Every structure is written in structure tokens, then in C-alpha cells.
């Protein structure tokens, strides 16, 4: 029995270790090593901190880095603000069939490729697009309006893309809130605002945290939306990674960028977990 259990354990452990070791841990270590070297000539490298120095001194890189971080936080906040009332409506106001249908309607757009969603926004927002035509038809504009290629368009796309990942955890936690608790809040003299602040939001906190983490990660790591909807000025950090790797073939700098993005996301996720006293297991598992 003992030996049998031991063999079973090893058989089950092996795929896990192979997967995490070969595809997650070692590649990231390798990436770190590459980011810590400098190309002297063809095939000759030297350990150095040049890449990080470059990344931290070049204004364009630094500006893009912080812009990406701030815009991602902003996108997360906007997504939360838009999603919360809707999630609450689905979880607590809608009943029976309507509740199921609304929830399904929330899910369906996200079974569709991000590319298709972005494409939809391009059709809507561009100069020859639907909204521009609508504005002209309504007499609100006398010539085609270009609404693509700016930060607002990009924000619309980012929020749209990550909406599901906010709505699902919020609906799940809000559904578990007992109606009678809310009723008790009113019964004891609370009003809409105080019940929201002292009962509903604290109860929804786990959902808010996991939703925010996922949405933030998705925004930070997004490539498609900033590229397709954002303008020349709305450079995203992922675009810089792509450029260094694929366009310029400067892997050392690209790896450094990749590492900076990883550190940024880890710090912010860690900070969010710290702030709310939760663990990654609770939030993701």
C-alpha cells in the first residue's frame, strides 16, 4: 500500500513539475538572465545592467511604463463602477428566468474572440463608422468624426474586454448575500446608502478584489486594444515589448521590459491582496 501510494504520488507530481518547471519557472529565469546581459558583438555577451538603465532613463520607455500602469488602474476602476450596479441588479433584483438570461447575456460576448470585439468597436468608432454617421444624420456634426485612435476609444475597448471578469465574481458573491441581511439593515433604520456601504460592499469585497485583480492583469497585458483602438500617443507597454522582440530583435531590452511588466503586475496584485488581507488561493482558487 505504502509503495503503491508513493508511485502514484510520483506519477501525479511529474506532469505538474514538468509543466511548471519547463514552461513557467525556467523560462522566466532565463528571461531574467537575458535581460541582465549586453551584446558586445555577434554571439558575445557580457553580464550588465545596461538594459534596465536604458529602460529607466529613456523618457519614452519610462513614460509608457507609468502610463500603462495608471491607465490600467483607471480601466479597472471604471469597469468596477460600471459593473457593480449591473451585477447587483442581476444578483439581487432580477428573479428566476430573467436572472439566468441576463447572466448568460453577460457571458456570451466573451466567448467571442477579443479580436472580433475590437473589430466591432473599430466599425462603430471610425471616421466612416456607425456613430459618426449617426451624429451627422442627427445634425450634431457636419462632417465625419474620427473617434478612433485616442485614449477614450482605447478605454472603451479595455473596459468592454474585461467586463465579464468583473461581472462574474461580483454576481457570485452578491448572490450569496442573504436578502434578510439587507432587510435587517433597513429594519434597524439604515437607508440605501448606509446599507450599501456597511453591508453590501463589505460582503462583496472578495468578489471585488478578485474581479479587480483579473481586470487589472488583463488591461496591463492587453496588446490588441491599445494597438487597434489607441492612437499614436497611446503607446502601451506590451507594444514596446513586441517591438523590441519582433521588430528590432533586441531581445535583451525586450526581456528587461517583460520583467518590468511582471514586477509591476506582481507588486500591484500583491498590494491589492495585502490591502484587503486576502490570499491568492482564496482569490483565484
Amino acid at each position, binding site marked *: 500500500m505504502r509503495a503503491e501510494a508513493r508511485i502514484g504520488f510520483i506519477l*501525479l507530481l511529474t506532469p505538474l513539475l514538468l509543466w511548471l518547471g519547463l514552461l513557467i519557472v525556467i523560462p522566466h529565469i532565463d528571461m531574467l538572465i*537575458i535581460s541582465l546581459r549586453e551584446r558586445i558583438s555577434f554571439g558575445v555577451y557580457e553580464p550588465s545592467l545596461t538594459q534596465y538603465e536604458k529602460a529607466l532613463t529613456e523618457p519614452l520607455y519610462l513614460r509608457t511604463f507609468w502610463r500603462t500602469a495608471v491607465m490600467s488602474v483607471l480601466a479597472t476602476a471604471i469597469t468596477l463602477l460600471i459593473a457593480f450596479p*449591473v451585477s447587483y441588479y442581476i444578483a439581487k433584483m432580477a428573479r428566476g428566468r430573467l436572472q439566468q438570461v441576463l447572466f448568460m447575456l453577460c457571458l456570451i460576448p466573451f466567448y467571442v*474572440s477579443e479580436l472580433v470585439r475590437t473589430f466591432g468597436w*473599430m466599425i462603430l468608432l471610425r471616421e466612416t463608422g456607425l456613430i459618426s454617421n449617426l451624429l451627422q444624420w442627427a445634425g450634431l456634426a457636419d462632417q465625419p468624426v474620427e473617434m478612433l485612435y485616442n485614449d477614450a476609444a482605447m478605454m472603451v475597448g479595455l473596459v468592454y474586454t474585461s467586463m465579464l471578469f468583473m461581472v462574474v465574481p461580483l454576481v457570485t458573491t452578491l448572490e450569496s448575500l442573504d436578502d434578510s441581511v439587507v432587510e435587517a439593515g433597513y429594519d434597524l433604520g439604515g437607508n440605501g446608502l448606509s446599507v450599501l456601504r456597511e453591508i453590501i460592499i463589505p460582503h462583496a469585497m472578495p468578489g471585488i478584489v478578485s474581479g479587480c485583480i483579473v481586470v487589472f492583469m488583463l488591461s496591463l497585458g492587453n496588446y490588441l486594444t491599445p494597438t487597434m483602438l489607441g492612437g499614436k500617443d497611446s503607446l502601451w507597454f506590451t507594444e514596446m515589448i513586441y517591438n523590441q522582440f519582433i521588430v528590432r530583435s533586441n531581445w535583451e531590452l525586450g526581456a528587461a521590459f517583460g520583467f518590468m511588466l511582471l514586477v509591476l503586475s506582481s507588486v500591484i496584485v500583491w498590494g491589492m491582496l495585502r490591502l484587503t488581507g486576502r490570499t491568492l488561493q482564496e482569490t483565484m*482558487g
Partner: protein
Amino acid sequence: MIPTIPRSRSFRVLYGGYVLLFFLYLALPLTVVAVFAFNDSQFPSLPWEGFTWNWFFGEDRPQIGVFHERGILRSVGTSAFVAACVAVLSVSVGTTNAFLFNRYEFRGKGALYVLMLLPLVIPGIVLGISILVFSSTLANGIWNAAEVDIQALRPGLLLVILGQFSFITTIATLVITARLQKFDRTLEEAALNLGATRLTAVRTITIPFLMPAMIGAVVVAFLMSFENFNTTLMLVGSDAPLTIAMFDRLKEGSTPLLNAVSLLLMLGSSILALVVILFQRR
């Protein structure tokens, strides 16, 4: 703010209106994509030039339809192949992971579990480049040592499959673990008691119990792989999966052909999604 607590009429109307607006926002881009797939024009935009099926079935340029466009069809095949490989691999490893975390207590289990979750919080692009970097380090190392060029380690389908597998496995593990946690271990004991060996008990009792979750995970993995963009972008070689092929065309300027592909994608994903939901309901 629950139905049992009375609210003013204007509040209810306002709230309902907001929710309606939200769903319009959700539906708008997808509807637009779908509608313009039938526009008899070179551009997926107004003016509306009339209804046509050409973007699906057209045989001649310029209005060549999806079903006659070789490039698109080939990339659909590539995507399906990649997605099938990723689904099978990630659900297999996800199942073994679920058993490992559910059945064994060992040192470092907590740390390993957190490590298992990490791929979800690593940006897809970073995941892609790290695998790209490592595989070329490997390939270069092998070249330097033995003068053998392993093509498989260069950007291409194998790397795309591994890259997608690396984070989709986490999702498969979570889905299957959740179901396994609901499993009543005495059922397995009952099977042993009735004469089954350990392996037979797992095969005849536990696996059938896990089946809905495993099928659900296969479909989810397939969809996620089919739609993946970020990781794939960094690892793709000459055979482009559908999302990458569409991206390249979109950069050159779009025709309603892309709308037609998108509409088919939407239909396909919705059907698959429906299958998952039906399975989980059972």
C-alpha cells in the same frame, strides 16, 4: 435595494434604464460585426449597399467568401489543430494535478499550489516571450553542442501549443479540482470494498463523476486556445492561427470578409458555450 424594499418609481426606472444601456453596450459591437457581414460593399461600414451572402459563399474576387478563401480556411484548420492539442494536454495535466492536490499531503504543497495559480496573473505577452527566450536558448545550446538545429524549438506551432497550454492548464486544474472536492471519498471505498482495485475504482467511479467537469474543461480550453492572441502572437511561426491571420488582414484594412469570419466564430463559440452550460446543468 432588494425587491422587498419599496423604492420610488423614478429610481426603478432609472436603474432599469441603466441596466438596459449596459446590455446595449455589450451587444452593440457584436451586432455591428454580424450585420455588416451581409453588406454588399467592399467596406464593413455605411452606406448600406444591400444584402448579400457573398462574403460567405462568393467564389470570385473581389467578393470572395469565407468558404472559398484558402488562407482563412487554412488558418481555421491550424487553430482547430492547436486548440485540440491544447485542450487534450491541459485537461490531462489538469486532471492529474487535481488528484495530486486533492489526495496527497506533502511538504511544499501550499507553495506548489500558489505556483500553479501564477500563470493566471502573468501577462500573456510575458508568458509568450519567456517561452520564446527559453526555447531559443535551448535550440542555440543544442546547435552549439551538436550542430543540430531543432526546428521545433523555433517559433511555430509547437511553441504556440506549449505557450497556450502553460496557462490554460491552470484553468483546467481549477475546474476539475472544484468538482473533485465535491466527490464523496466513501464511494471509492465502497468500490474497493466490492472488490475493485484502486485503479479500477478511480476508473469506474471517480472519473465518471469528474466527466462533466472534464468535458467542460475541454470546451473551455478549446475556446480559450482558439481565441488566444497575446501569447500566440509572440510564438507564432509561418503557420498562422486564425486570430493572427485576421489581425494581419485587419492591419491592412478590413473587408466584410472579416465580418463573415467573425460571425461564424461567434456562432461556433456560442454553440460550444451552450454545450458547456448544458453539461454543467446536468
